[in-house]
């Protein structure tokens, strides 16, 4: 070895000067090359997996209208759901409703009274004016100027409810305005609910030119808008029972409330209307007249709701008209006392900040209407925790396919999730539900509401993933679920 090194040394020693320089340059080049050589360092890892039985399985909840196909040992599911529709008008109980947006004197309304009753339609304010400043007087019963509708009370009606808004534009002292309930127009047999300027309200029975005051109360007209509301039972068992209330429009405070029972004019009202005193030089305005058969026009009712769902009624500008929240009976009542006729209305159902039903348009919503919510909280899949541990669970949208031209909403959540997956039209508004707890040994459900308008010809296809994990763990399991929503 020593000899070999000596030979190498001798080899370099005996080289001439330039060759030594060349060799040194070569060594330098080699050193630079090595210095810039690639270096890779390896850390080994071994991964062993042994797969075990899953802790949570899916179940078919057996919900009517929901078809569930489970596979992969109940860890994957295809679900077929029928969209149950939306909000449907099931009863219009108002047989007369008039917001005077068109001239009522051109056919639908007949004015009784003197030869110059002074009835006119205010096209700007869209209400009806009775002007008695021209001294018109006495042409009809007891100076009453009456406008009545040609539409009769529907046969079989037990109770007739009436509402009208009134405003005293001018005049005072001994003047009145109110609601008329005819048994017979020609015979001049009717009841009248009267609200005076001087402190009085009353229920009177009129027979030809005579009258009987059945009830009176003290109340004053301060020249503001009022709502007059009344009801009469036409047949037994409550036949002849009458109730009459006057509300301030702005505050909805009751300024007068009267009841009376009288059945001299049996079957009244067969025709209904409104009016006032004629010969006392007053000017009156009337607006928003509604006559309802067997339903109170003060309310719009929505049935078929889940407890806690709130229905919002908005006008065509989006302004809130009324709202009501469903109780345990699934009914929400919206008080429309101050605005019983809403044209181009929108109804919307929400649960907190969740849109169960985005705004659905109606050409008109009238006091006394009944709408049925055909959106159900539908259990589409059951979840059973077979573990001794509690899990957090949630849902996520992986994919959404929607047919063109469909609108509506889909909400999906697990158990008691506060925030569901929300899909409106073709867009995923909220793609992941909030988490809920699936307790050890417990069964919970994936819920959904489906309202598609119009029902699509091809299904909306939702690809979901159901997730569960132990709260303190970073290990999470997901199962695939496909939901097809049909029209």
């Amino acid at each position, binding site marked *: 070895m020593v000899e070999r090194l000596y030979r190498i040394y001798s080899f370099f020693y005996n080289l001439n000067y330039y060759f030594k320089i060349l060799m040194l340059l070569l060594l330098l080049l080699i050193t630079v090359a090595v210095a810039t050589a690639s*270096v890779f360092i390896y850390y080994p890892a071994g991964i*062993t997996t042994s797969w075990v039985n899953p802790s949570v399985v899916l179940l078919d909840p057996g919900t009517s209208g929901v078809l569930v196909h489970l596979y992969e040992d109940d860890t*994957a599911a295809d679900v077929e759901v029928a969209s149950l529709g939306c909000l449907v008008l099931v009863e219009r109980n108002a047989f007369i409703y008039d917001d005077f947006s068109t001239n009522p004197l051109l056919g639908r309304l007949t004015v009784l009274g003197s030869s110059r009753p002074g009835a006119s339609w205010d096209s700007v304010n869209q209400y009806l004016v009775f002007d008695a400043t021209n001294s018109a007087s006495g042409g009809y019963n007891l100076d009453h100027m009456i406008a009545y509708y040609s539409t009769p009370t529907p046969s079989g009606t037990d109770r007739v409810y009436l509402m009208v808004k009134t405003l005293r534009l001018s005049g005072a002292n001994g003047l009145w305005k109110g609601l008329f309930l005819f048994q017979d127009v020609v015979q001049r047999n009717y009841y009248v609910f009267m609200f005076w300027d001087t402190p009085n309200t009353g229920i009177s029975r009129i027979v030809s030119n005579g009258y009987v005051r059945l009830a009176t109360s003290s109340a004053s007209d301060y020249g503001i808008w009022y709502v007059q509301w009344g009801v009469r039972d036409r047949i037994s068992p409550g036949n002849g029972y009458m109730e009459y209330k006057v509300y301030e429009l702005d505050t909805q405070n009751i300024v007068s409330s009267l009841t009376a029972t009288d059945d001299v004019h049996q079957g009244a009202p067969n025709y209904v209307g409104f009016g006032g005193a004629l010969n006392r030089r007053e000017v009156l305005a009337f607006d928003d007249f509604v006559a309802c058969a067997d339903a109170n026009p003060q309310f719009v009712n929505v049935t078929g709701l889940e407890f806690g769902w709130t229905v919002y009624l908005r006008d065509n500008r989006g302004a809130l008209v009324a709202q009501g929240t469903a109780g345990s009976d699934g009914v929400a009542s919206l008080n429309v006392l101050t605005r019983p006729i809403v044209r181009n209305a929108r109804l919307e159902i929400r649960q907190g900040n969740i849109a169960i039903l985005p705004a659905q348009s109606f050409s008109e919503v009238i006091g006394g209407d009944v709408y049925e919510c055909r959106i159900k909280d539908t259990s589409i899949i059951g979840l059973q925790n077979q573990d001794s541990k509690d899990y957090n669970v949630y849902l996520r949208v992986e994919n959404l396919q929607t047919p063109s031209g469909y609108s509506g909403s889909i909400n999906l959540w697990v158990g008691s999730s506060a925030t569901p997956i929300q899909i409106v039209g073709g867009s995923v508004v909220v793609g992941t539900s909030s988490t809920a707890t699936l307790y050890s040994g417990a069964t919970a459900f994936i819920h959904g509401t489906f309202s598609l308008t119009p029902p699509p010809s091809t299904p909306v296809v939702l690809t979901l993933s159901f997730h569960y994990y132990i709260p303190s763990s*970073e290990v999470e399991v997901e199962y695939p679920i496909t939901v097809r929503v049909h029209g």
Partner: protein
Amino acid sequence: MKISALLASLLNIALFLCYTMEITDSLSQRLLYLYVTGTNTGVRNLSDAEVNLSEESNTVIITLHPYRRGTTCYKDVLRISNRDTKKTYYIGFSVDTAFDDAAIAEAELVVRDATTGALVGTVNLRSTGTTWSPWSLGAGGQLRVDLRFRVSSDASGSDSASIQLIYSPQSAESPP
């Protein structure tokens, strides 16, 4: 001819020595560490995953129990930490032995930024080979390793894979 052979010999000797030194230097400085956050090591959780590191923090044994149905994702199984205050390192993986049991439909190693959770890259553990994009790990930075399995099996079973974390101070060349 003798001279060229000598030069080649010298060159090889130099390369070998320098390479060895470089590795020794890296290990002695311990710039890149593997460590676990605690969530998935030695604790009983969803399916009792265990992650065991060697004392030198450069070898790891991972034992998992995914469900035989569905997709099981183990988050934050491991972290890769660059403790160098100046130098960026480049990271890749090689799969030497892949999961080959047909029950494992998908097996994926997912690398994310440990701070933001942003996806850095994935490695398919169902096939052998080297994944060298490479992914940079800046000075003081951390990467998070998740493991994701989709198993579809009628019964219990098991399978193993061996992989290697590769790192280098340069990104221009691929590992051999």
